[in-house]
């Protein structure tokens, strides 16, 4: 039995007692075991054939070049079927793998051979492959990558806060761009369209639209015609790629001696012949068709966090219901097929060569979020039997992919919430919850039609997408506002960067005589970072369409097809751009402001001189000063003193965003979702007046600073509620982590407590919430004995990852999150 004198979550109990969860899932586990916890390797074929074509098409319209390059990939890349799988289609070799996107980062592949040695998310590659990359691929991209273009375009004053080297590879972690290691932000396709129509029909539409063009118009023949040619070509490419899998399946069937497997392979061959060209006829068709599109999207480009799965319980349900009725599918078979898809997904790893990108996405993170629940376009509850099947699968087979997101609204059925609570209680972090009552009104306020807003899919980490009306957004700027606080204290400087004036010289902090004067200085530093961030993002957005096209995503988008414009274009008539910038260190900044206001200016317990000396010494010899600062009011405790400051800081961001979003015609709104980057961003920040020690993690998303939320999880929710400016629309998602000990949610009463908490969270119109239900002792034990705890999943930012896949820093960060236990 366990050594802990406490209550265990089901996940903890399984590990502690080595309980076998494999019964009935032998086949799925056989696939999983073949790659689980192995170091992924890099497959270079995509990069090779993509580059080969791009070399041959210089000068042509980009969207057409992209389609040709993908066609080349579709024709030449080796096709694979995972042994034992019922779904065909991989973007690379057997096992756990990642692929290369040299159009993004091909200029610094000299480090490829060393990727297996890095601590965070290592990858393997053979010397022979490195050689091919360095001789055939990298040289072509030298001078052409987005990354180099951006690095060159960045004016010196922006560089000073963006990069810490001349190459633009090392982030300064002050105002960081995240666009140079991905071609766009998270996205979701209209999979429903794929299943209902198939690519033959989508191709027919492209042909018709091309035929309707004015053949004598110089504008249309140059601007639009190549687009539709590309659309036709991309349809051909994906259909061709799929058919090659049919051939492979048939070939494998020919060699197969096992009768059952042979029959399976032949059935797969039949499906690959028809999917995704034709409409799906049944559930198995639908799964295969969706999978082909999903995998080909990965070959198309590195959209950050990968294309999400969309509202799977909605678009798959008609096939599920119909097959069950017809007796050609059982509930268990449907579950097996979905889980087969999950283990296929788990093999493709989103590879970041860029060291900064890697820092942001620890634990081999990727987010093909599956959305369940929510409402129909007409606002009725959309929960169905498949929604429950997804939850059941996560409880029984808690793999870290795909991420599961449940949409909650005021009329979500009680059973849905109870099963969500049961799944959350399992302790592996699924599902995360997104609130319709916040997203839908906000999205309509920003301009979306009501029915499209109602039909949003959860995408990426915590975001929402409307796949036929929103347009692509660039990798967003991450603004480390904790540095604004540091720069206020040190007159524009950061201890990490020595004498360089990184911010503004707002004056000697010890000479400031009033709170207003200090606050003013902070706001000046804060605004300076905002200005830099918006300027940087404007350059990022302007350069993006010169480098990237996305024919597959465009052919599935209503507006792109109508307007004849690639989705990578910045402006598409009728399109809405909901992009955002990231606020790092919200709780940290608020707590610093509250501490200075209260301790220095109101209670006069400390002088500014004492505070400055203490933080400059990282509190060594000033332990008492640190403790006094820590006892000041802090964010996350439902304390109006701190929450009022938090609300004002949010308003400062929103007001600025509003002003310049209007000018630009796109939204660039404030978001509080650090993924895992609050750890590396903390590493450049010295000690701060909230008592935070130098180089430690910043607060995470809209959660409280570590250990600062001593009033319990309900208070954290209330602080979020009170710090949000709901009368303004220039805001985006807020990530909220809550960690509970299993004891608190024990039994049926515990399930009800989670349900009640979710209902209240919904009432409070908070965007997101996710739970870690785990004992601190388990995490400490896993650090000591990683082998035993290999399967331990924890919730990180918007996703769950294996605890033992994470760096020591991030492990400690999770351990230090406040665990709420009240009796």
């Amino acid at each position: 039995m366990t050594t802990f004198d406490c209550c265990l979550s089901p996940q903890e109990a399984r590990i502690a007692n080595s309980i076998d969860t494999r019964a009935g899932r032998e086949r799925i586990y056989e696939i999983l075991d073949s790659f689980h916890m192995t170091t992924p390797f890099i497959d270079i074929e995509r990069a090779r054939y993509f580059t080969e074509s791009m070399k041959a098409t210089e000068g042509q319209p980009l969207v057409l070049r992209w389609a040709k390059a993908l066609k080349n990939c579709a024709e030449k890349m080796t096709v694979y079927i995972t042994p034992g799988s019922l779904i065909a289609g991989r973007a690379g070799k057997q096992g756990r793998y990642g692929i290369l996107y040299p159009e993004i980062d091909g200029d610094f592949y000299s480090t490829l051979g060393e990727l297996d040695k890095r601590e965070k998310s290592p990858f393997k590659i053979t010397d022979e492959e490195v050689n091919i990359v360095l001789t055939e691929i990298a040289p072509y991209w030298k001078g052409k990558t987005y990354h180099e273009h951006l690095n060159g375009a960045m004016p010196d004053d922006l560089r000073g806060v963006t990069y810490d080297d001349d190459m633009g590879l090392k982030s300064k972690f002050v105002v960081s761009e995240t666009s140079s290691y991905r071609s766009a932000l998270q996205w979701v396709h209209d999979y429903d369209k794929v299943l209902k129509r198939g690519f033959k029909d989508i191709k027919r539409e492209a042909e018709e639209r091309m035929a309707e063009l004015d053949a004598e118009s110089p504008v249309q023949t140059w601007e639009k015609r190549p687009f539709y040619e590309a659309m036709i070509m991309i349809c051909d490419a994906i259909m061709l790629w799929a058919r090659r899998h049919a051939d492979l399946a048939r070939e494998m069937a020919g060699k197969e001696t096992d009768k059952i497997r042979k029959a399976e392979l032949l059935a797969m061959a039949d499906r690959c012949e028809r999917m995704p060209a034709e409409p799906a006829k049944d559930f198995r068709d639908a799964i295969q068709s969706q999978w082909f599109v999903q995998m080909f999207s990965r070959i198309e480009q590195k959209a950050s966090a990968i294309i999400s799965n969309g509202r799977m319980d909605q678009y798959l349900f008609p096939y599920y219901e119909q097959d069950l009725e017809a007796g050609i599918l059982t509930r268990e078979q449907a579950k097996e097929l979905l889980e087969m898809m999950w283990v296929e997904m788990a093999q493709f790893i989103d590879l970041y060569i860029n060291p900064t990108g890697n820092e942001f996405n620890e634990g081999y993170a990727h987010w093909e979020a599956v959305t369940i629940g929510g409402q129909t376009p007409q606002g009725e509850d959309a929960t169905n039997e498949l929604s429950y099947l997804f939850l059941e699968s996560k409880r029984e087979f808690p793999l870290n992919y795909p991420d599961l997101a449940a949409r909650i609204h005021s009329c979500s059925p009680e059973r849905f919430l109870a099963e969500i609570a049961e799944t959350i209680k399992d302790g592996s972090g699924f599902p995360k919850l997104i609130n319709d009552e916040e997203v839908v009104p906000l999205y309509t306020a920003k301009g979306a039609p009501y029915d499209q807003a109602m039909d949003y899919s959860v995408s990426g980490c915590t975001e929402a997408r409307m796949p036929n009306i929103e347009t692509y957004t660039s990798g967003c700027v991450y603004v480390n506002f904790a540095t604004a606080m540091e720069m206020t204290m040190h007159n524009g400087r950061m201890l990490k960067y020595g004498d360089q004036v990184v911010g503004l010289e707002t004056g000697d902090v010890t000479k400031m005589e009033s709170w207003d004067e200090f606050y003013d200085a902070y706001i000046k530093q804060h605004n300076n970072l905002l200005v830099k961030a918006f300027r940087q993002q404007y350059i990022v957005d302007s350069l993006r369409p010169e480098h990237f096209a996305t024919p597959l995503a465009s052919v599935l988008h209503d507006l792109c097809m109508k307007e004849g414009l690639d989705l990578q274009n910045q402006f598409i008539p009728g399109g809405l751009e909901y992009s955002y910038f990231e606020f790092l260190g919200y709780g940290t900044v608020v707590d610093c402001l509250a501490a200075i206001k209260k301790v220095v200016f109101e209670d006069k317990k400390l002088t500014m001189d004492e505070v400055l000396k203490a933080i400059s010494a990282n509190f060594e010899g000033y332990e008492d000063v640190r403790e006094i600062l820590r006892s000041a009011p802090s964010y996350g405790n439902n304390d109006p003193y701190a929450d009022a400051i938090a609300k004002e800081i949010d308003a400062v961001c929103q007001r600025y965003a509003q002003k310049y979003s209007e000018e630009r015609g796109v939204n660039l709104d404030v978001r509080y979702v650090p993924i895992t980057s609050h750890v590396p961003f903390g590493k450049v920040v010295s000690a701060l007046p909230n008592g935070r020690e130098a180089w430690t993690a910043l607060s995470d998303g809209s959660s409280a600073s570590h250990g600062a939320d001593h009033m319990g999880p309900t208070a954290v929710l209330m602080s979020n509620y009170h710090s949000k400016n709901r009368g303004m629309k220039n805001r985006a998602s807020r990530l909220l982590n809550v960690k509970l000990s299993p004891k608190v949610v024990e039994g049926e009463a515990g399930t009800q407590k989670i349900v009640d908490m979710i209902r209240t969270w919904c009432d409070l119109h908070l965007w997101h919430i996710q739970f870690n239900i785990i004992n601190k002792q388990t995490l400490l034990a896993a650090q000591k004995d990683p082998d035993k705890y290999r399967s331990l999943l924890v919730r990180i930012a918007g996703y769950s990852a294996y605890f033992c896949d994470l760096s020591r820093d991030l492990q400690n960060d999770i351990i230090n999150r406040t665990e709420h236990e009240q009796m």
Partner: protein
Amino acid sequence: MSANEGIVFNIQNFSVHDGTGIRTIVFLKGCPLRCAWCSNPESQLMKPQLAFNPMKCLTTEKCTRCMDNCPQDAISPSPDGLIAIDPEACIHCHTCAEHCAANALNVYGKTMTVKEVIREVEKEAAFYARSGGGMTLSGGEALSQPDFSLALLKEAKRHRIKTAIETCAYARYDDLKAVCEYLDELIVDIKAVDDEKHKKGTGVSNQRILENIKCVAAEFPDLRILIRTPVIPGFNDTEEEIRAIVDFIPVQPSIAYELLPYHRMGQPKYAYLGMEFPYEGKALEEGIMDRLRIIESEANQRFKQKQ
């Protein structure tokens, strides 16, 4: 103390084990009992009390703020690097706690008005509405501040906050009756039926307690009553004891019964207050709770079925 003011030593949010739903517990100071196993020793005296947590103290090498600010010079460094307070010189002004950087010196109990308490409680009202929770008065013994308790409950009701009280029922019946008018749920302990045993364990006779419970159950037949027994090793942790308690309880559907296993989580606080922990080394025998739970669930079946 007037009805409008009382001494509160803690307000705890997100309480999920004391009453229905998600609740906020208001802990009032002062208790007429002196249970040997008490897990809230800081609650026993009515007046505010200074406590010292040596684990939090930064040591006199790093911080001398308490000594520097004591108007009586009653605090001096102790040989172990911590502090010593001269009880003769101390006038209980608690200035030291105000200046303590690390909150190692801490005062249990502060005077609060009804309005202040309700304002704190109402901050979490969004959670009560969904969970059926609300405010629970606890202690100490809430009824040792009867006027304040009543005023809090009245005000909570005016704010449509659901109410509960946790009491040992060692109180004037009139006081108990008065608060019951404003309660949604009454939580009351029976620690032992045998009076001698009760006196030994708690310092008081149980006659008034048992009488009060009978009277309340009869006079408020619709009030939800949860009768609880803390299962204390070496005191009442036998099937005979628990059965005797269950047999005493009036059989009616408004009543439920619950066993609370003994825990030692209050132990460190004894040291902070400079008190001896009288229950050192005691723990429940393994498996006993499982056996006692059978009696608990049989009793609940019986109460529920009574119409």
